[in-house]
């Protein structure tokens, strides 16, 4: 068997040296030619800020954005899992019309750029839905109340609730198609005998799904599902385009007001990286423990 080398070869050193040179040139161009002034020392203040009036630390732009990104990712994941499971089941349905609808939805999402999809969902679905249910007025009502601590904990600033909810819905609708494909693969990987055994003891279709097929299917597709949720976090930056005030949106704001282009974006990149890489390490570990 081929063994992966653990020590660096002279060729590896050469590659690393070339890369280092490359980084240096870019660095030189930025600070020399562009006359860019690095102001890393200002960044922490945009994460946590000391509030003189209240005398406590408060989250500033970047951290606010990060928290919103995390909130939206969690809610959108849950929603995408529910919708995706329904879609996955629909893709395996005996009824042709149901199967075709689910297939159409998937192909639609697969063959249109995400940004376009997000705009379509936003203007055609989310906004209509928010207006129809008067969520705007309702959220403003809560924002004005005194004891809205629980609401704020779950949804942040309630004045931004409508935008956050539409962002969550858009993101969930978008990801659900891919979750649906994963669920479908899981369902189809369960041998036919399992269904037959469930049926032969008189189970209803719903019970068969709930107690026999889905528990086994979901266990099988846990690794690709967790990857999809990491993708969802990354994809969440797209909804900054519909003015959801998550991390990317806040970074754009920060750059516009301070001109710290490189510092702000590198910090944001680090936030995303830590979040996604941390989760993937966690999932990998859980997976290993689950198997043991």
């Amino acid at each position, binding site marked *: 068997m081929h063994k992966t080398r653990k020590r660096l070869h002279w060729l590896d050193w050469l590659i690393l040296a070339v890369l280092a040179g490359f980084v240096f040139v870019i660095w030189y161009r930025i600070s020399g030619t562009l006359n860019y002034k690095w102001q890393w020392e200002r960044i922490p203040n945009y994460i946590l800020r000391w509030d003189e009036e209240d005398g406590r630390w408060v989250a500033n732009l970047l951290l606010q954005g990060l928290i919103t990104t995390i909130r939206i990712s969690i809610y959108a994941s849950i929603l995408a899992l529910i919708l995706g499971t329904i879609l996955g089941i629909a893709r395996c349905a005996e009824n042709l019309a149901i199967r075709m609808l689910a297939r159409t939805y998937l192909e639609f999402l697969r063959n249109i750029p995400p940004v376009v999809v997000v705009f379509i969902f936003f203007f055609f679905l989310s906004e209509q839905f928010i207006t129809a249910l008067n969520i705007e007025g309702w959220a403003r009502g809560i924002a004005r109340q005194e004891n809205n601590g629980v609401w704020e904990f779950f949804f942040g600033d309630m004045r931004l609730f409508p935008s956050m909810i539409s962002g969550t819905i858009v993101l969930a609708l978008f990801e659900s198609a891919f979750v649906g494909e994963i669920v479908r693969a899981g369902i189809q990987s369960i041998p036919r005998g399992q269904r037959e055994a469930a049926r032969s*003891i*008189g189970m209803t279709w719903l019970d068969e799904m709930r107690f026999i097929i889905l528990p086994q299917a979901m266990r099988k597709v846990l690794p690709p599902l967790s990857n999809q949720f990491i993708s969802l976090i990354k994809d969440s930056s797209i909804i900054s385009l519909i003015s959801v005030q998550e991390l990317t949106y806040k970074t754009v704001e920060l750059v516009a007001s301070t001109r710290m282009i490189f510092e702000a974006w590198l910090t944001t990149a680090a936030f995303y990286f830590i979040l996604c890489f941390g989760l993937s390490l966690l999932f990998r570990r859980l997976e290993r423990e689950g198997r043991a």
Partner: protein
Amino acid sequence: MSDDAPIIELRNVSKFFGPFQALAGINLSVVAGERVVVCGPSGSGKSTMIRCINRLEEHDQGSITVDGISLGEDTKDIRAVRQEVGMVFQQFNLFPHLTVLENLTIGPIRVRKMEKARAESLARNYLERVHIPEQAGKYPAQLSGGQQQRVAIARSLCMEPRILLFDEPTSALDPEMINEVLDVMVELAGTGMTMIVVTHEMGFARKVADRMVFMEAGRIVEVAPPSVFFTNPESDRARMFLDQILEH
């Protein structure tokens, strides 16, 4: 219903897979308590026939009546029949994500709406009947093939069916485990359960069968009591088949 009214009745049943005819005009009546053993060459439609009885396959022509219920599109009827008809598969088909006990109780709890405690005592009772009460907490993958098949039989019994269908229940087993499963089936036959068994275990057939059914190419070629079937079969086809499998 009188005693000798059939509990299962197939009338002129045909079944097609695309252009291929798997069953061609099957007629068969089974009365309550009867033990019928079905045999015949591979591809003759044995599985297809018994799978039509609990509608794992849909028949295309003719009628099937089970315990007074005619099998059609009505899902309520189908489920009612399935609760009365247990099925034991060649590949066991136990639920791998559930323990043995959960495998047995899920039917009573979800389908019969039985309380968990009652379902569990019922399940333990049937595990006793198939001689593996000590395996209740294990997962199917931790059991031998013979034990798995006995769990599968117990799972069917937990639904307290009036009829049990067996589709080559010992064909996937190592030789040394075949008897432990056959023993359980013989005991079952002694309780007066109505059984239709597809098998090539002729020793078992001789011991328990009231009638032998011989199939070939989607038809029932011969029906006879085992005493006649094994010594003096009417059809040449059955004779050839018996010669082949009894040779070994």
